[in-house]
Structures are given as C-alpha cells and as structure tokens.
C-alpha cells in the first residue's frame, strides 16, 4: 500500500547549508518537512524546499489539520495544503490524530481526543473528506499524550486501527509516541503494537523525549532512547521494511550526529528484518 522510502530525517533550518550547499550529499534517502513552514509565498523556505525536492523524495508532515475537532475542516488550510502538494509532489502526506482548533481559535498543539465512538465516527468522516479533497491517501500519526479522558472507551491502538480501516487511510507509527503515551498512562506497548494493522503503516517516526519524573514529554530534544530502539526493532519485525526517520526539533545537533543516529536506524532495521526472515532468533 505504501512505498518504502528507506531512512530519512526531518529537514531543519540549522541544517539547510549542510543539505543544500555542501559538496558532500548527506546519506539520507528522503526528507520530511513540516508542511506549515512552507505554506508561504516565497523567500528562502520555498527555495530550500525546491532544491531539496530536486534531489530527494519528500514527505509533507502537517501539524494543523486538526482532524479531530468538532469545528468544520478549515477549507483555507486545505487549499494551501493542496497547493503545496501540487508543487512538491510529496511521497507521503501526513498529520496527527489530534485536534488543535475550537470555535475558530487555534491552540497550536496536538491535543488528545477522547477515544469514543463519536470521536471515531467524526475522524473517519473527516479523513474521508480530506482524502477526497486532496485526491490522495493521508497518514495519521499516533500522538504523545499527557491525559486520558474519563469518557474514553477504546484503546488508542484499536482506535488508530479502526480509523485506518474505515477511512482507508494510512498510519504514521511514531514509536517514541507509543512509548511516551504507554509510560504516561500505564498502557502495554506490545499490546499497542499488536493492535496496529501492519499493512496500514506507511511510515515510522523515531524521536527522543524528556523524563520529568511525573511524566514523559515528547520534546524531540534528545537522541532516541534504548527502550524506543527496542520497540522500533519489535515494530520492524512485525511490519517488515518501512520508511523510517528521526525527528529532532530542539537542541538540534550537527547533521553529522543525526546521520550517525540514522545509521543506527539502518542497522537495527536490518537486524530486525533478519529476525523477521527467520535468519536470527
């Protein structure tokens, strides 16, 4: 259902020079960009995106779709996203299973949904509308969350699976988010993974988080931790080869450091695939 793009990174401003102007082409198979950062008329952001797209496949990763809000879909936003898609011809278009707008106001955050039948129906209907509007399949990413709602009745993994099946969309499996939410809410990450339909997973995110003692926060300011590496290995054993990438948004190290971390992803995926093929225990 989804092409395997290999191993990618999130494109960040501080690395523009290393990506575009360097004589050495970084060993990255594809780049993910935050869609909203490029929904501008011109200037350096659009120039960089053009240059990157000339050399690599690009995934458009949005944060503002607000698929779970009871507000209607933001047609202005969708028009801008459609225009960006037409321009970039991305390999993947994704956003999050969350909501961020209400009454026309934006919280600029990935707010959690109560996992109820009503929310499920609403998200399914909206994903269908978005996919009709964009004339392509989108991927929804599982969020990191810091609360659960009293009204919730469905486990998050099953909620994701049901949306993907009913709306015919893909899943962007953020392994760090699975880990963070499971730790925060006492869920079982293996049960979570087991609920995810393998054929629906079009992409994987890896990232670091911060441990505040009372909770883990999805800060993207650390390297990937051991527990998340281990969960990624489990995910690849279950899913097979999948477009995988590292997100880093804060305390961003030099590109070389992220490339070393990306080499770990390649090695771990190769190891997991060998296990999957039965060549390793």
């Amino acid at each position: 259902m989804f092409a395997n793009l290999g191993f990618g990174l999130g494109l960040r401003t501080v690395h523009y020079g290393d990506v575009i102007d360097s004589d050495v082409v970084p060993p990255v198979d594809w780049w993910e960009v935050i869609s909203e950062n490029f929904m501008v008329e011109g200037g350096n952001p659009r120039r960089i995106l053009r240059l990157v797209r000339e050399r690599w496949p690009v995934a458009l990763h949005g944060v503002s779709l607000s698929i779970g809000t009871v507000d209607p879909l933001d047609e202005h936003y969708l028009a801008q996203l459609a225009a960006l898609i037409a321009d970039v011809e991305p390999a993947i278009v994704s956003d999050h299973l969350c909501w961020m707008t209400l009454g026309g106001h934006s919280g600029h955050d990935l707010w959690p949904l109560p996992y109820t039948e009503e929310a499920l129906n609403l998200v399914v209907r909206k994903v269908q509308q978005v996919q009709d509007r964009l004339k392509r399949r989108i991927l929804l990413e599982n969020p990191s969350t810091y609360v659960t709602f009293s009204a919730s009745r469905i486990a998050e993994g099953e909620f994701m699976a049901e949306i993907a099946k009913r709306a015919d969309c893909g899943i962007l499996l953020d392994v760090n988010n699975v880990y963070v939410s499971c730790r925060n809410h006492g869920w079982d990450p293996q049960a979570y993974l087991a609920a995810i339909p393998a054929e629906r997973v079009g992409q994987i995110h890896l990232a670091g988080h911060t441990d505040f003692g009372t909770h883990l926060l999805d800060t993207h300011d650390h390297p990937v931790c051991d527990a998340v590496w281990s969960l990624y290995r489990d995910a690849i054993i279950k899913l097979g080869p999948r477009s995988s990438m590292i997100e880093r948004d804060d305390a961003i190290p030099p590109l070389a450091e992220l490339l070393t971390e990306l080499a770990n992803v390649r090695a771990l995926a190769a190891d997991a695939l060998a296990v999957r093929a039965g060549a390793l225990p």
Partner: protein
Amino acid sequence: MSELAMIQQQFYDFVTKGSAADGLIATGDLKIYARMYASRLHDAIAGDYPKLQNRLGHDEFASLVYRFIVAHPPQSFTLRDAGLKLGRYLRSSADASVGVWAAELAELERARVECFDARDAAPLQQDAVAALGDALPDLVLRWVPASAMVTLTTNVDDIWSAIEDGTDVPAVALAQRVVLVWRRATTVVHRTLDDDEAALAPMMIAGATFTEVCDVLATQHGEQAAPRAVELLLRWLQAEALDDTLVARSV
C-alpha cells in the same frame, strides 16, 4: 451539544483560560497542556519580536504576550501569524501601558517577518534600465513585492540597529521617519528613507513612472530634481528594491 463538543470546550477553556474541568480526565495532568499552550505561543511571538523583548525585558514581554493572547487568541493555522496583530494591539488603547515606541518597534519587526517569506520577484536590473534610453521617463518604479513601509514617530529604527549591532541603545526620542523594509534575494534588510524618498515611497507601492517621481522631487529640489531622481534610482537599483516592471508577468 454533543459529548465530544462538550469535552473539547471544557479542555479548551481549561488550557487557554484556566476554567474548571472537573471530571474531564481519568489520568494525567491537564496543566501540562496549559503550560505548553502559553509557552509555545510565547516562544513563537518572542521569535518574531526579539528586539521588543530585548527592550521590555523578559518578564514584561512575557506579561505583554500573555495579555495579548488573551485579547487575540490565535486564529490562523500557522504559528507564524500568532503575533501578527501585536503592533496593532500595542497601538490600541487596550494596552497603552508600554508606549507608542513599542508599537512602532513591533511594526518594524513584523514588517521584516512579512518580507522574509513574501512572494518572490526578480529585481529590476541596472543594465535593463540603461538600455531604455529615451523610454526612461515612462519606466514604472515599484517596490518589490517583498517590501513594506513603516512610518515612525520615534527613533525605534536606531534602537533596532543598536540592539542588532550590540552598541549602546539610545533612549526613546521623537522622530518622524519612514523605513523601507525589503528582501534582497533571501535576506531581509531595511533602511530609513531620506525625506524626499519618504514622500515618494507610498506612490511606489502601486508604481509611479520616472516622470511622476521627478515631478514630486521638483517641489523640493527645483532644477536639481532630475539629477536627484537619477541618484535615487541608482540607489534603489543597487539595493535590489525595485520590481522588474519591464518584464510582462502573468500573476
């Protein structure tokens, strides 16, 4: 109102206004979202108004941003626009506590943000103008699309530069000025205009012919209007501030 709508309203009101949310959550801490809402908006707005933050100090700027987002909760899908109305907010009587200079500094910083990613356009080239010969009087002079005019009554342009250069920041003083902000290739620049340039600048948003520019300069410079017009034209060309009006473009 549906259950989902009620849950989202309660969540939103808690996170953005601190209203009660009894019984809403089963586990976790809603305050995490409230803190992130405030800090993400603060950081985005601080990123767009670094010089204003520098002048007000961290705490006063944070308090201003808090009052501002209560008055103008973000409506756009992009964080880039979260602080769009900060200058207008400061100008309004709603928040006059920090003075008109703060509004003007905010407007200057905002103009730079807007120019950063405004529409691309090829600048008018010197050799193309030189090749016009007798057709020069009809040449339309228009600022590049990535440009903005900021009218000041205080010296915040000097304050901006001093902070940028790390030199002594002058005290706020009254000063009638017009600043032109524009983008050269990918770099945003600005310059305080001479008085005669400032009189021309508004005409050149829509476009004015070289003849019209000379006519306006004649009221100030009399017979020296033509050489002054040529001098300004060269200055603008070298600065890549003029749109290439010689190229027919389908927009």
